[in-house]
C-alpha cells in the first residue's frame, strides 16, 4: 500500500514546552491507524498540525505527494482531511442535510437553495453508511450516536481522504460502537485513511491496522497491530521511569475524615471513596473518567443525583460550595484562571475572598486584618509577588496556584481536593507545590489529588483509586503502585494483579 499522508520532521514547541519533537510518520491509503498515548503525550497537537489548526515550527506535510503549506482547517477540509472531535461541530438547530452541506450549499439559478437535491444526496450518503436517519431531522433531536453519523456523513460527502477520529466511541453505547465499527470498515474499504485516537486498547486491536505510540511529545514506535500485544503497548505508553524526587511522607495517617458514598451525577455513575487525615489519596483515570466531576460533587459545585457525603463519620449536606467550605473542604480547581482565582483582583483580595466574614467579623471589612492575612500566607507559601496589591493576572502559574491554596488555608480546610495541581506550572514551581502538599498532609490535612501525570500521582499518593467511566475501577495500595496497573484499570481492562485495600 502506498503512503497517502506523509509527515516529515514535524515539530512544535510552545514557550517552555516541547509539544512535539521532530518526527516522521506516514499513513497508508485505506488503513486504520491508531494514535495511542497518555494524556498530554502530544496526540492532540499532532492532530492539530495535520488539520492546520496549529502551525508547526519545522517539517512538511504531504498529501498524495503534494506538500501542504500554510494550511488551515478549512483548507485541509477542501483537500480532503476531515476531523471528528469529541465535541461535535454540528449546528443543533439545523436539519441533518443543512449540517451536511453547511458552507457549501447547493444553489440553483437565482441563488435559491436546492433543498430537495441536498436532502436526497444526504440521504444517499447516510444510506451508504448503513443508516436511515432522515435528512430533514433536526440534529438536536438525534441521539449522540446518530449525531456522530451525521458528522461522518459530512466528511464522506466531502470526499474526505483522511478522516481523524478523536475518541469516537467515548460517548457511544455498546450497540452504537458496533455500528461505528461497521462504518469504519466501509470507509476503509473505500480507501479512506482513518486516524483513530482511543484510550481503549481493545478497540485498537479490534479495528486498527497499525498503531503509533506517543509519549511526552515524541513518537515512540509505529507497529503493525498483528505483531504487538496489549502488554507491549502499555509498556511503550508508560515507558519512562519515575525520575522526579517527591518529598517523603512523614505523616501519621489517622482517622477517616471524608467519605463519599455512591455518588451519582452526570458522568459519575457510582463513585465511593474515603480519605484519612494525613493521607494523600490519588484519583487516577483517563480524561472523561469522572474525576473532576467527582471532585466538584464533593465540593458542592455540581448537584448530586444521589449519594452521601460524610465527614468524621457524620452525614453532612453539601449542596453548594458554601456548605463545603463551612465543613472545611477546599477545592483547588483544574481551570485555575477561570475557577480558582479572580485574575483582575489583588493577591490580598484573592487570599481572603473565601474567608471574608472570618477575617472581618464586624460590620465593616477590616483592611488591616486582610492585609495581615495576605502577608502571612505570602510568606508562608513563598508567593512571589512585588506587593500584595499586585493583580493575580500578573503572577506566574505556580504563584497563582499558591494564592488559591492560601485561600483554602485561611478558611481552615481539613480536606483539600487538588485537581491537576501542577498543570501549566513550570518544573521548579511544581516541586514547591509538592512540598506544600506534603507539609499539609504531614499537618493532618486529608488530601485528594487528581492528576493525569502518572509519576506525580504515584510519587505523591499514599493510595490510589482509579476511575473508569464514572466508576471505581480499582484501588491500589502503595505496595501495588505501578503505572501499568493504573493504566490497565483506567483503560477498562480490569485488574489482573490482586490488590488489597490499604488500611
Amino acid at each position, binding site marked *: 500500500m502506498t503512503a497517502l499522508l506523509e509527515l516529515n520532521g514535524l515539530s512544535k514547541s510552545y514557550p*517552555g514546552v516541547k509539544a512535539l519533537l521532530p518526527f516522521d510518520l506516514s499513513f497508508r491509503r485505506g488503513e486504520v491507524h491508531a494514535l495511542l498515548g497518555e494524556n498530554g503525550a502530544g496526540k492532540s497537537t499532532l492532530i492539530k498540525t495535520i488539520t492546520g489548526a496549529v502551525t508547526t515550527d519545522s517539517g512538511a506535510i504531504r498529501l498524495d505527494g503534494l506538500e501542504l503549506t500554510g494550511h488551515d482547517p478549512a483548507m485541509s477540509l477542501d483537500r480532503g482531511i476531515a476531523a471528528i472531535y469529541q465535541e461535535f461541530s454540528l449546528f443543533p438547530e439545523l436539519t441533518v442535510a443543512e449540517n451536511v452541506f453547511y458552507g457549501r450549499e447547493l444553489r440553483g439559478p437565482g441563488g435559491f437553495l436546492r433543498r430537495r437535491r441536498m436532502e436526497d444526496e444526504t440521504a444517499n450518503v447516510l444510506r451508504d453508511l448503513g443508516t436511515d436517519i432522515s435528512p430533514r431531522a433536526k440534529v438536536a433531536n438525534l441521539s449522540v450516536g446518530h449525531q456522530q453519523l451525521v458528522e461522518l456523513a459530512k466528511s464522506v460527502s466531502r470526499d474526505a481522504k483522511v478522516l481523524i477520529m478523536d475518541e469516537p466511541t467515548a460517548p457511544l453505547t455498546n450497540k452504537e460502537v458496533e455500528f461505528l465499527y461497521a462504518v469504519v470498515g466501509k470507509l476503509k474499504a473505500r480507501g479512506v485513511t482513518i486516524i483513530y485516537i482511543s484510550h481503549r486498547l481493545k478497540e485498537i486491536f479490534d479495528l486498527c491496522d497499525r498503531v503509533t505510540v506517543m509519549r511526552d511529545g515524541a513518537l515512540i514506535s509505529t507497529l503493525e497491530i498483528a505483531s504487538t500485544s496489549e502488554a507491549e503497548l502499555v509498556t511503550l505508553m508508560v515507558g519512562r521511569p519515575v525520575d522526579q524526587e517527591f518529598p517523603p511522607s512523614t505523616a501519621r495517617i489517622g482517622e477517616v475524615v471524608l467519605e463519599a458514598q455512591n455518588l451519582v451525577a452526570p458522568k459519575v455513575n457510582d463513585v465511593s471513596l474515603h480519605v484519612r487525615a494525613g493521607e494523600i489519596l490519588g484519583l487516577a483515570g483517563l480524561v472523561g473518567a469522572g474525576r473532576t466531576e467527582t471532585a466538584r460533587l464533593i465540593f458542592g459545585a455540581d448537584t448530586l443525583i444521589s449519594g452521601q457525603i460524610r465527614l468524621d463519620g457524620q452525614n453532612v449536606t453539601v449542596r453548594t460550595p458554601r456548605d463545603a467550605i463551612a465543613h472545611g473542604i477546599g477545592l483547588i480547581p483544574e481551570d485555575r484562571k477561570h475557577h480558582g482565582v479572580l485574575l483582575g483582583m489583588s493577591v490580598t483580595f484573592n487570599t481572603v475572598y473565601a474567608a471574608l466574614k472570618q477575617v472581618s467579623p464586624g460590620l465593616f471589612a477590616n483592611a488591616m486584618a486582610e492585609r495581615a492575612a495576605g502577608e502571612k500566607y505570602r510568606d508562608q507559601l513563598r508567593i512571589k509577588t512585588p506587593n500584595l496589591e499586585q493583580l493575580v493576572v500578573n503572577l506566574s502559574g505556580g504563584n497563582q496556584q499558591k494564592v488559591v491554596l492560601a485561600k483554602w488555608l485561611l478558611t481552615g480546610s481539613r480536606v483539600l481536593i487538588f485537581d491537576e495541581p501542577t498543570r501549566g506550572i513550570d518544573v521548579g514551581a511544581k516541586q514547591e507545590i509538592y512540598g506544600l502538599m506534603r507539609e499539609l498532609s504531614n499537618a493532618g490535612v486529608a488530601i485528594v489529588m487528581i492528576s493525569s501525570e502518572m509519576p506525580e500521582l504515584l510519587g505523591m499518593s499514599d493510595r490510589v483509586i482509579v476511575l473508569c467511566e464514572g466508576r471505581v475501577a480499582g484501588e491500589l495500595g502503595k505496595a501495588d503502585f505501578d503505572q501499568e496497573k493504573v493504566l490497565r484499570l483506567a483503560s477498562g481492562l480490569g485488574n489482573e494483579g490482586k490488590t488489597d485495600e490499604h488500611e
Partner: protein
Amino acid sequence: MSTNETLLGGNVPAHAKRQKRDLVTVLAQYGIYLALVILILFFASQSDVFLSKDNGLNILRQVSVIGICAVGMTFVMLTGGIDLSVGSVIGVSGMVCATLVSLGFPPIVAVAAAMTFGAFAGLLSGFIINVLNIPPLITTLGLMTAFRGISFMIGGGLPVYGVPDSIKFLGQGYIAGIPVPVILMVLAFIAGHIILTHTVFGRQVYGTGGNEEASRLSGVNVKVLKYKIYLIGGVLAAFAGIVLMARVNSGQPKGGQGYELDIITAVVLGGVSIFGGVGRLTGVIAGVLIMGVLANGMILLNIDEYVQWVVKGGVLLAAVALDQFIHGRGKT
C-alpha cells in the same frame, strides 16, 4: 493541548500587559476628572452665567435624581448586570407616593409604600434573572415597559397633584443653602461608597463581577447577592422617584422616562465596566456631573434639544467604546 495554551497565557503577555495596563489604568481612573474640568472650562468660556453659584446649584439639583439612581446602578453593573427598569420605577414610585398623599394618607406612609414598590421591583428583577435565567438586559427591558404601563394606570394616565409641604421639602427644600436633593444624592454616594469599599458585601460585589463562577466556588452565594443588588437599585430608584415628584410638585406618569440611559451613561462614563468587577463611585460622581454639565451647558448655549440627544447618545457609545478598549480584552 490546553497545558500549553495555559502556559502561553501565563508567560508571554503578563509583563507587556502590566505596562499597558498601568498607563491605561491611570487614564481610566483620572481621565474622567480631566474631561469634567475641560467641559467646565469650555462652557465657562462660552457663557457668562455658567460659572455662577446659582447655575452650579442648578446643575447639582438637576443631576440629583439620576445621581441617586447611579449609585444603585453602580452596584448592579459592578456585578456585570444592568437595570433598564429604573426610569419606570422612578415613574411608578412618584405616582404611588403622590396618589397616596392625595388620598389623605400620611406622607410617611406614602413614601414607605413607594419605596416598598422599589424593593418589590428589584426583587422581581432578581427573581427573573436567578430563577428564570433570563439575562438582566432582557429582564429589565421587559420590566421597564411593564412598570411604565403601571405608572400610567395608577392615575388613569393623568398626573396627580396635591403634594404636601413635608414631601415638597425633599425636592425643593434647602439646608444651609444647599438643595435637599443634592444632600440626599451626596448621602447616597457616601453610603454606597462605604458599602462598596469597606464591607464584606462590597468585596463580594466586586468579586462576583470579576468572576462569577470563581466567586461561587469561593463560597459566595451569588444568587442572594444578585437579589440584594437589584433590591438596592430598585429602592434607590424609588427614592429618586419621590425626590423627582417632590421637585415637580406632582406625580407624572411619564416621570423618569428615558432616565435609565442617562444613568447608565453616567455610570459607564464614571469608569464602571459593563463587564463588571471594575469601577468606583468616586468616578461615577464625575460621570454624573459630566451628564449634568453637558445638559446644562448645551441649554445655555441654546443648542437644539434634538441635537442634545445626539450628543448624549454619542457620549454613551464613546464611554462604552473606551470601556471595551480598557477592559474588554483583559477580561477572562
